[in-house]
């Protein structure tokens, strides 16, 4: 005799490791997922596969000698890391940066934001299952931006371009015309990309209402950048606490309403348009003059401590430096945007399916180089 109860299959939760080596974890990241069939009950993020002890290494280097290591924090956007670190040391030592260098820095930081969001949006759509078509489009455009970086510093990934008190070398004469072409190209590309995806039915079905992060939880977790703005927090350090010369440019802060994956995607696309606006203004206003403050090769900032932060493409990137007036920082802490942005991941993925987990994780946009340091 078989009753209905006996016919039902017994299920019990089981644990699956996603990562550390998995294409959808954006680096060496591991999630221990407790699953009930296809539904995520709980996850535990596991870090440390890329821990290189960068904060310890900083204590053994000169202030300038640490700049190449900042490239390796968030290796998708090294220019922003360079900028954040240099601003912190300049604030500590009271160094004034020449006008031309400030403009070059802003142009580079905004180009970097465009390049980062190209990767972020492309790989998020990859995670959504739009296999490699949208990704290749964005990578094609990112390539043009990397060509520009190559032109100014000879590097394609780890730029090591900025210096304390300015930048390492002046932009070549052909840079500004090339920049104008890239800006035109990207403006056109963004329109094309919007036509392809903004009202795409599959993307809407996969991303709208998925992985909602509430405004309160985002603030409580210290989440910043596009992820926070997609949850409706109108907070952008370029406006809230202007550094460098950002107070001279006109731009808007795009925000989302629902805090779902679709909003995070939208905020990034709209931020790219705003970055193009800033670059257009900066390239028109850029003055001549020196590109680096007149400083000795080795600087000894006065004893004290400083925290400087910038709005990096992924969120608030900060450097907390303690100086004891010696050749190297006594302590150098990096505020890791990517690590802190993962703080709410658990609540965001609970109850969603594995396929959604991959998309929600992709929409946060992290780099393991910055999480583990």
């Amino acid at each position, binding site marked *: 005799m078989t009753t209905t109860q006996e016919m039902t299959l017994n299920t019990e939760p089981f644990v699956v490791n996603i990562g550390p080596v998995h294409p959808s974890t954006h680096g060496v990241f591991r999630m221990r997922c407790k699953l009930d069939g296809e539904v995520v009950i709980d996850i535990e993020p596991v870090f440390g596969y890329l821990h290189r002890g960068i904060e310890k290494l900083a204590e053994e280097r000169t202030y300038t000698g640490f700049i190449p290591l900042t490239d390796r924090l968030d290796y998708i956007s090294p220019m922003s890391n360079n900028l954040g670190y240099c601003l912190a040391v300049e604030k500590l030592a009271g160094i004034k940066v020449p006008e031309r260098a400030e403009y070059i820095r802003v142009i580079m930081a905004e180009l970097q934001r465009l390049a980062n969001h190209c990767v972020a949006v492309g790989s998020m759509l990859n995670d959504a299952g739009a296999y490699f078509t949208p990704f290749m489009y964005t990578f094609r455009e990112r390539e043009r931006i990397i060509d520009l970086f190559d032109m100014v510093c000879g590097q394609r990934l780890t730029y090591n371009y900025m210096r304390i008190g300015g930048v390492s070398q002046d932009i070549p004469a052909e840079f500004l015309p090339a920049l104008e072409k890239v800006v035109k190209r990207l403006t056109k590309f963004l329109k094309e990309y919007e036509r392809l995806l903004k009202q795409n039915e599959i993307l809407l079905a996969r991303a709208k209402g998925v992985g909602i992060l509430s405004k309160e939880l985002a603030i409580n977790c*210290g989440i910043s950048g596009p992820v926070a703005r997609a949850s409706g927090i109108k907070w952008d350090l370029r406006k809230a606490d202007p550094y460098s010369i950002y107070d001279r440019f006109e731009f808007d802060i795009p925000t989302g309403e629902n805090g779902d994956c679709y909003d995070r995607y939208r905020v990034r696309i709209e931020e790219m348009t705003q970055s193009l606006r800033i670059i257009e203004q900066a390239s028109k206003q850029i003055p001549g003059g020196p590109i680096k403050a007149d400083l000795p090769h080795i600087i000894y900032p006065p004893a004290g401590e400083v925290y400087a932060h910038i709005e990096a493409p992924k969120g608030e990137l900060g450097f907390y430096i303690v100086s004891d007036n010696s050749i190297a920082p006594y302590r150098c802490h990096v505020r890791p945007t990517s*690590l802190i942005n993962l703080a709410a991941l658990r609540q965001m993925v609970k109850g969603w399916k594995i396929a959604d987990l991959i998309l929600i994780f992709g929409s946060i946009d992290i780099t393991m180089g910055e999480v583990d340091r």
Partner: protein
Amino acid sequence: MTVALSSREIASQLSSKFPGAIEAAGNDSVLVKSDSLVQVAAYLKDTDGLKFAYLNYITAVDYYSYFEVVYQLTSLEHNRSVILKTRCYGRDNPSVPSVTSLWQGADFQEREIYDLFGIKFEGHPNLKRIFLWDGFPGYPLRKDWNQ
């Protein structure tokens, strides 16, 4: 512009509310006794007019004779920031109270400090090493750690 709130002003406000909790007020930071850290932080977080609801970061510094744990709070509403510091002494078993009950974002950061400095956060729900493996010898960001 995010205004760094005058730490002396905020320290006097805090010490009238929590007598004996404030050890010193520097130019840009308030030094809080570690046993009243959570109450002071909760007051700063929830009081109208202050509303320091956003925890920017937590970090620690090893000064040999003591460890200093640094908290930067920002009020998104009023666009102001304040730095709280607390100290713990002794190298064998230093500990400070955890603020994870106030800020969920403190979880990973406190685990990181525990991992690299060996400072225990009392009341942390899941205090274990985050980057290094269990059994790693010592705490690498301490100044007396040898490679």
